[in-house]
């Protein structure tokens, strides 16, 4: 098991280097002269040349690549042109908000999706199954921005139960930063009222973000459960007199969970990438919003930085999924 984990971590490092290289290639094949972009439309030829030298853009591509990778190794993601602050610092400032949103959304997706998928499979073709299937199709079909606005109108504007947008109201003093996740930090600081406020803020965006993910977890889990429930060892368990609930909730679920886990890993990456829309609708101060505003002002270093950070979390999530696989399935441990 340890050797397996070690190999997975090595793969993680390799993949990370691959992503870094790929990002470099993509930014360099993209049309346009970055130096001219930075210098602005009214710059003279001299100014462009100065900037080119300053950013090291006059060197050959391999040389630039070495410098770029070297910078990455030391955690230097470059500087934002707009704010003139280091990109790493800014990304680290915005990332926790996004991560918090994604974690909560993922929790909703798993906690609701897995049991619903199970129920749907056990009562296949019954009323519960039909309702969850309609539910899951709409989950995939509803566009996030539209669904978000509808929720805002209903629960924030009309009913007034929840805040419309943002992460914390301006008047609330944020808890001391430990993890950057407000829900965790407020609990650590023992401030239950702040926790409650943060929770009320995160509910709507998290639901919107979780909906497509919930739907796909539900569908995968349902399909897997249906298949597992027909398998021989389930028949055997029934024949040996094991209680139905135990068969479904333990014997079958553990087997059905493997493909569902793979889906969870993929969805995690997808969520990180698609928070942009949700963050825009709910004015959520995360890296999605940061990347969009940077891209709109042709500020490329932050865009690359965000790409790398999202890539990093995605790979970490999938490595964890692989490890969970081996933890659940003994056959994979020796492989």
């Amino acid at each position, binding site marked *: 098991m340890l050797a397996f984990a070690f190999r997975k971590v090595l793969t993680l490092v390799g993949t990370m280097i691959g992503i870094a290289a790929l990002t470099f290639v993509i930014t360099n094949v993209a049309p346009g002269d970055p130096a001219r972009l930075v210098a602005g439309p009214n710059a003279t030829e001299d100014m462009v040349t100065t900037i080119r030298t300053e950013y090291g853009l006059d060197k050959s591509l391999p040389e630039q690549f070495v410098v770029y990778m070297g910078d990455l190794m030391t955690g230097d993601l470059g500087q934002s042109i707009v704010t003139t602050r280091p990109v790493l610092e800014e990304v680290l400032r915005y990332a926790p908000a996004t991560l918090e949103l994604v974690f909560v959304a993922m929790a909703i997706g798993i906690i609701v999706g897995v049991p619903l998928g199970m129920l749907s499979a056990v009562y296949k073709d019954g009323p519960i199954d039909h309702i969850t299937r309609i539910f899951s199709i709409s989950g995939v079909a509803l566009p996030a921005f539209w669904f978000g606005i509808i929720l805002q109108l209903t629960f924030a504007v009309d009913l007034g139960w929840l805040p419309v947008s943002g992460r914390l109201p301006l008047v609330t003093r944020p808890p001391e930063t430990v993890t950057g996740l407000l829900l965790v930090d407020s609990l650590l600081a023992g401030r239950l009222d702040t926790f409650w406020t943060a929770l009320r803020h995160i509910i709507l965006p998290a639901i919107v973000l979780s909906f497509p993910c919930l739907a796909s977890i539900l569908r995968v889990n349902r399909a897997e459960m249906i298949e597992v429930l027909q398998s*021989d*060892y389930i028949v055997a368990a*029934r*024949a*040996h*007199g094991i*209680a139905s609930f135990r068969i479904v909730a333990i014997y079958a679920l553990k087997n059905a969970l493997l493909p569902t886990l793979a889906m969870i890993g993929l969805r995690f990456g997808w969520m990180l990438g698609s928070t942009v829309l949700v963050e825009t609708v709910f004015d959520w101060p995360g890296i999605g919003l940061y990347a969009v505003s940077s891209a709109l002002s042709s500020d490329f270093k932050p865009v690359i930085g965000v790409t790398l950070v999202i890539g990093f979390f995605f790979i970490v999530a999938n490595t964890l999924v692989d490890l969970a696989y081996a933890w659940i*399935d003994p056959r994979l441990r020796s492989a």
Partner: protein
Amino acid sequence: MTGPLLDIHNYRLDIATFDGPVHVLKDINLTVNRGDTLGIVGESGSGKTVLVRSVLGIGPKASKVVEGKIAFDGQDITALPEKDWTKIRGIRISMIFQDPMTYLNPLFTIGQQISDVIAAHEKAGGHGVSSKAARRTRTEDLLDQVGLPNPSMLFDQYPHQLSGGMRQRVLIAMALSGKPDLLIADEPTTALDVTVQAQVLDLINSLVEKLNLTVIMISHDIGAIATIAKRCAVMYKGEIVEQGLTADILSAPKHEYTKRLLAAVPDIDTAATKVAAQPAIAEPAKPGVLLEAIDLKKVYRSQSGTEVTAVNSINLSVATGEIFGVVGESGSGKSTLARMLLRLIEPTSGDIIFDGRNISGLTGEPLRLMRRHMQFVFQNPHSALNGRHTIGDAIGEPLRIQTSMSRRDIEARVEALLDIVQLPKMFKYRYPHELSGGQKQRICIARAIALNPRLLILDEPTSALDISVQAQVLDFLQELRAELDLTYVFISHNLAVIRQICDRTIVMKRGEIVEQGETETLFLSPQHEYTKALIESGRKTSRAANLSAPAVS
């Protein structure tokens, strides 16, 4: 002790399907007394599994009892509510299954699975669940009882770490955990190797004696039934066509179907009458060796670096026109060898000479062209045909790939091939699921001979088929060889089949040839211990089934 333990009376069962109800069981009458050993024989689709599963209340979901009832120990269990079943299932009636590979949950340890069953029984019994340690002791006792070594180590192992025979013993241990009155064994040896089959049957026999069990065993293998069951019922298309003492049925079958079934069982102790089927002397131009393997070796390397030698330095030569048998148990490397001979698996080292030409170095186009002359027939015809292609497409595929024949020519050739395998021409419009197992295997053979190959490699071509169908396919293969001047490499674990059809045979064990020679010589005076053991275990079930051979034929 009054009345029978199990009484099935006028039982009729329908299963609702898309096309309306199917009568799966018709007028079943069956009584089992305490201490009885009853065998139910029947081929796939005869309804025997549905019948015994109904006894345990785990029949198919869409089924409906039309008439009759099943009484267990005086209690009507035909329409028992689910909660009452918990007092019966696994405790009073328990079951062992066909394929120990798939009937154990792969993600839980052996110990946990058996302990769970014990806990479930204790719960159903109403007296609380005993401690984990107590259940562990009980589990280890059970494992010991079924003859498994080192129970305490086994407790923490997972199913995939065990061999097939060990898994079957684990399943038997599980079935015994409730101290059942009635044990139902559903094809308990079908998926096992011959030597292991004999051991498992011995185990069941000894348990019957020791624990005074009542047993119902179902199987398509009359030999296995004969070793266990004193009484026997023959099922055909959902009906019991004949029942009585096993010895009587074997020696004097009454029903037409039973007679046919018995006649189809190959006998390990009978020399083949068809061996003289002219080994292609009709082709004097190319006598001698068609296929040769020199020092052929296959080593698999796992990710962690351990090496497994699947096939170790095999030398063999197959003469033109002969049927060359390869026999061995699962894991002996016979399938790997077969696939290497066709270069479907790349050998680690060694040479393959086909018709005087070394094909081990061939790649790309020359290899592709070479494949015209050598074709493969797979074990399971149900998975060897693409369900979305018509039979015509399937047979025509090699013609489309390997030749430049026109559509019309291919159509004509497909019809001719269907004719050769004795199936109606109209079958080309059908889909695989509309065909029976035997018909599908014929289609696979038709596809293999489409290009007029010279060599056919048949990997257990009859193992997935019913016995009566097996006999037909074997006869057919022999006819076909004479007709088309074919050479066969015939792989099987079934010694009786090998003896019936092969000219020369090699016996494989753990990737090596332990013995080889003329098939008859091999059977009459086996030299190697392993060959002797194989024949002895094969004989055990075969002889029981054929104790009446003269009366049948």
